[in-house]
């Protein structure tokens, strides 16, 4: 609502009856209460996770969530990083799950950055306007494929193909999951890249061409540098999506709760752990609270990633406006 409108309405309001005014006010507050739902939800998610995590720290101890020190037969203490909350001597190391999440999300981000940016450049700079009009909805439709379907494809086809190609030590592994993740991240990175490139003003392209640059030189030296912050925001958001994704990792990663840095081994991510264990955990047990700690770590890390992307995009918008 701009100033003009407000002024107009205040003059106008004086003329209408009081009853009508009250009705208008009531309608306004009705809409406002509805819009408070988003604040209420995000706050209660945060408070809820915080409260349950606090209970976990109280009952288990913060140190346990990093690693557990056990004494080996030789007498030396050794820290192990394992997630075995149901064993006799429960272990709650989130480190192994964190590494698991990164082991799938980082390769997925690399792959989707490569392909996603290429598709974005193609759509924005190379494709004719007609093929762009066809391909853009197709990308959107790909982004709408349910993740459980990708997980299923990875199990039914992907696992066999990769087994024959690479002979990994585990049939289901981090690499397989990250290929699956990149299928959902590529459309995201591609459409955000396309958006960022299209927001580069056309004058810059024209100026570059008039200086004798060809298409690739223009893309490489003018458009990509101008849109670089948009591209990095796209990659960060793709990474956030990959970290937060559940079904693909749950189905394709093998779910072994060992700390590993080998991409061809079975591992387990934070999201998959919550998904696999929440249904069986007994209410208000230590294990139950521990799952909320994972939820808290996930929530905070995606929150920070989104915040960074948002800040970068805001900066870019300001720069492009001036």
């Amino acid at each position, binding site marked *: *609502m701009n100033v003009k*409108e407000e002024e107009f309405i205040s003059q106008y309001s004086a003329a209408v009856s009081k009853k*009508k005014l009250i009705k*208008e006010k009531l*309608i*306004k507050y*009705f*809409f*406002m209460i*509805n*819009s408070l739902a*988003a*604040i209420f*939800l*995000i706050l209660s*998610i945060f408070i*809820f996770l915080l409260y349950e995590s606090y209970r976990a720290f109280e009952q288990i101890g913060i140190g346990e969530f990093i690693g557990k020190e056990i004494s080996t037969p030789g007498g030396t203490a050794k820290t192990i990083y394992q997630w075995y909350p149901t064993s006799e001597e429960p272990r709650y190391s989130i480190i192994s799950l964190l590494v698991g999440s990164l082991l799938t999300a980082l390769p997925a981000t690399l792959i989707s950055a*490569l*392909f996603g940016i290429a*598709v974005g450049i*193609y759509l924005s700079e*190379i494709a004719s306007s007609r093929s762009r009009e066809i*391909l853009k909805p197709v990308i959107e*439709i*790909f982004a*709408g*494929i*349910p*993740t*459980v*379907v990708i*997980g*299923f*494809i990875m*199990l*039914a086809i992907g696992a066999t193909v990769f087994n024959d190609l690479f002979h990994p030590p585990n049939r289901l592994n981090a690499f397989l999951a990250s290929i699956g993740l990149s299928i959902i991240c*590529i459309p995201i990175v591609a459409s955000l890249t396309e958006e960022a490139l299209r927001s580069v003003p056309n004058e810059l392209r024209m100026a570059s061409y008039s200086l004798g640059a*060809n*298409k*690739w030189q223009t*893309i490489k030296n003018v458009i990509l540098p101008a849109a670089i912050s948009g591209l990095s925001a796209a990659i960060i958001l793709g990474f956030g999506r990959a970290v*937060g994704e*559940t*079904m693909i990792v*749950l*189905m394709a990663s093998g779910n072994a709760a060992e700390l590993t840095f080998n991409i061809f081994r079975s591992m387990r991510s934070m*999201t998959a752990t*919550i*998904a696999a264990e*929440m*249904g069986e955990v007994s*209410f208000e047990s230590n294990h139950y609270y521990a*799952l909320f700690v994972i*939820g808290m770590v*996930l929530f905070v890390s*995606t*929150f920070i*990633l*989104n915040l960074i992307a*948002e800040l970068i995009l805001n900066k870019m918008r300001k720069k492009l406006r001036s």
Partner: protein
Amino acid sequence: MSDIKDKLGMKSKQLGGIAAIGSIKSLTLIIFLVLFLILGKIFVEGIEVINWDFLIDSPRNNMTEGGIGPAIFGTIAVSILMLLFAVPIGVFSAIYLNEYATDNLLTRLIRASVNNLAGTPSIVIGLFGFGFFILVVGKSIDHILQTGLLFGQPAMLWASATLAVLILPTIIVTTLEALNSIPYSQRAAAYGLGATKWQTIKYVVIPQAKPGILTGVILSLSRGTGEIAPILFLGCAFFLPELPIAQINMGLFSIPMINPTDQFMHLAYHIFILATQSTNPALTMPIQYGTTLILIMITLLLNLAAIIYRYKFRKTLEITGKG
């Protein structure tokens, strides 16, 4: 001599450019090819098992035979309930944000919350749904109404409420876009005719923004139908012999109604269970492909409908924008 060098340099630069653009094109081609191959494979394998019986039958013989009728029913029921929760709240919030709100702290907070909600991992929303809806809200309802253990357990009601939280940001953002694209001149004309703010919204803004709002609703329906992670532990059942239907007694006759306090089967959960936890995955492979094809067809058709509606919306805007 230097002339030749320059020319050679130009040539190699041009060649490099052609190579770069060529590789961009081929990377794009690879992605589209891979995705079409995946969809094609699902279609070819899935279409073989799909027939009328497959769509309405219950699973039989330890899930190795029979159909997916209850799963289709459960998916539709959950999605309808989800929309009932999310659409009013989402559309009303967007109307407030676009039509009423001034740029103050509250508005900025609401917008930031919507953005954050959109970025929250779905499994975290599921965790919240489990802890908040079932253990806090459900248990309280049970306590107040003295219903024993009816609401305080995983059920369709809470699954759809959780999915509603998931799709709420999508609905708000798309509705905002639709409302925002209605030119201000339209509103000014309504005010000029003596309409109040609410009359303007009701008779001028919303009718024009309708196709745009519908686009958002369909898109979020498609997202909610395919998303299973948040409701894995919120009432999805491996196998239910009976549909979650309750007969509401109206004296002379009874009306069958979806029973929101029941557990349910779900297409996406069915795929997940058959692919990872069945005793013989190879035996159920045809059913897995069939179920996947049905789920994909539902989400793709919804997406297609959304794209068509958006196209229509843009056409309307072109007309009103000129007028």
